[in-house]
């Protein structure tokens, strides 16, 4: 064996560690995230009811943020799978605002267009689109639009439920609009401008 046969080591920073990532996530999170306090104990990953469906446990995701793995972290499906049950939040021994960090990661992923599966982001955006338009959520519009796009094959299965909801008037056929929708739109417009200045 000669020296040439041994592959040269890959430099650790080959992918370009992005040490501003953790700070950026913290600064974009509502409240004080305490993200830097994570001791990697795994309470979050252990508590998560939907952890099985996640690419990475929340703990791993936080380690990736620390390691500056921007692409990988933002591509992870983990934040989208989070059901906001807050089990991890109340159990976290370091009081990290885990659920809110997940929201931050989602918004950063949307901004960077880095998610792999568009189901969840689409759902969020459809939902929000309706809210921005009417000031209220519109379940029928949301459900039909969303299922049609992402689960067309499941739609027939969902029909009984949808029909039941409709027949019992638990879903309305037309969206309801708030009175001062223009006021709301003005507020949201200003909020978006402020967000963009960030």
């Amino acid at each position, binding site marked *: 064996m000669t020296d040439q046969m041994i592959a040269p080591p890959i430099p650790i920073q080959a992918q370009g560690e992005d040490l501003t990532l953790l700070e950026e996530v913290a600064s974009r999170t509502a*409240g004080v995230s305490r993200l830097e306090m994570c001791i990697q104990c795994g309470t979050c990953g252990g508590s998560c009811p*939907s952890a099985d469906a996640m690419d990475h446990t929340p703990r791993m995701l936080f380690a990736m943020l620390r390691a500056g793995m921007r692409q990988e972290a933002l591509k992870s499906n983990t934040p989208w799978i989070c*059901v906001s049950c807050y*089990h991890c939040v*109340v159990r976290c021994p370091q009081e990290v605002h885990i659920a809110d960090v997940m*929201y931050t990661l989602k918004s950063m992923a949307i901004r960077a267009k880095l998610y792999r599966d568009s189901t*969840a982001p689409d759902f*969020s955006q459809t939902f929000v689109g309706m*809210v921005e338009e009417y000031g209220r959520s519109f379940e029928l519009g949301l459900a039909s639009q969303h299922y049609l796009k992402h689960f067309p094959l499941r739609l027939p299965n969902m029909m009984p439920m949808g029909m039941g909801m409709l027949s019992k008037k638990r879903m309305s056929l037309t969206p309801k609009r708030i009175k001062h929708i223009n006021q709301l739109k003005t*507020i949201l417009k200003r909020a978006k401008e402020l967000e963009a200045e960030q």
Partner: protein
Amino acid sequence: MTDYLLYPGCSMETSARAYYDSLKAIAGPIGLNLKEIDDWNCCGATEYLGISLTPAYALIARNLALASNAANGTRTLVAPCSACYLNLAKADYYMNERPKLGQMVNEALEAGGLSYTPGSLDIRHLLDVLVYDIGLSAIEKKVVQPLTNLRVAPYLGCMVPRPDYQHRWSDHEQPIELDLLLKALGAQVIEFPLKTECCGGHMTQIGPATAFEMIRRLISGADEHEADVMVTVCPMCQLNLDGYQGEANRFFGTNYHMPILFFTQLMGLAFGIDPKELGFGLELVSAKNVLDTLGIKAPPETPPAPPRRPRKPEGLPMPKPLKRPKVEELEKEVTQ
């Protein structure tokens, strides 16, 4: 009469109509005066927060601003929906914890001629107000039809007891408030260890398989405990567990039939209110069995005398459960 501001939230007018109807029906008897805030908007559920921070909080804060303007001698804003409750509470808390957020949100609100000072409202869930303000003994006094033979699984879901910014609940994992309220109605309340597990949340929309598994865990848990009905405090939980129960049955090849009702509906029944006024019949998994059980006007059985403690104890003694001071006070209120 105590005045409260009410933020109903979108579901109360649609998918959770039964919740709203039954709430309106019981409010009078227990002296709960709810003032719906005018022209409220959607709180954004769990979706807007994941898209953009400032707009999401501005959306929520518009409701807080409207509520604080409407506040006349009261500072309590009641939300019956868990997600709404949490979002409102969260905005109020974080606008204070991160003054910069508060400042940006207020800047946005100003564009619409509004403003909100964090901390100026007490944001509370309906159950909290019923248990801690109205009081269990007052509720118990209104009971004319005790739910004696009904086995109830109390189910709170996630966002009421957690993250609990203002420490309003007895516990994050196994809170006792709903159990005691149902006991005050005379129901047989089962020790339901899954009472704050997740119903699946928005996963019914974005990852049905995951959601169905979470629904199955809860329904099968209640079934194992031989519950006649699961009682919830949240429109989303009700929708997931009731609306998707059939779909979950199909997915796993199971055949559960677990009615899911709002706690206010059971309160109404116990108060002797007509089931129709309480939104019965709107559920997809029929709750007829509940009414049937109660229809049997059998006099309440005298409970069997507790067995005498054996002279020679078997096995090792168990530690006594921890009595938090809050719980102890609450328990004193229920005579049962």
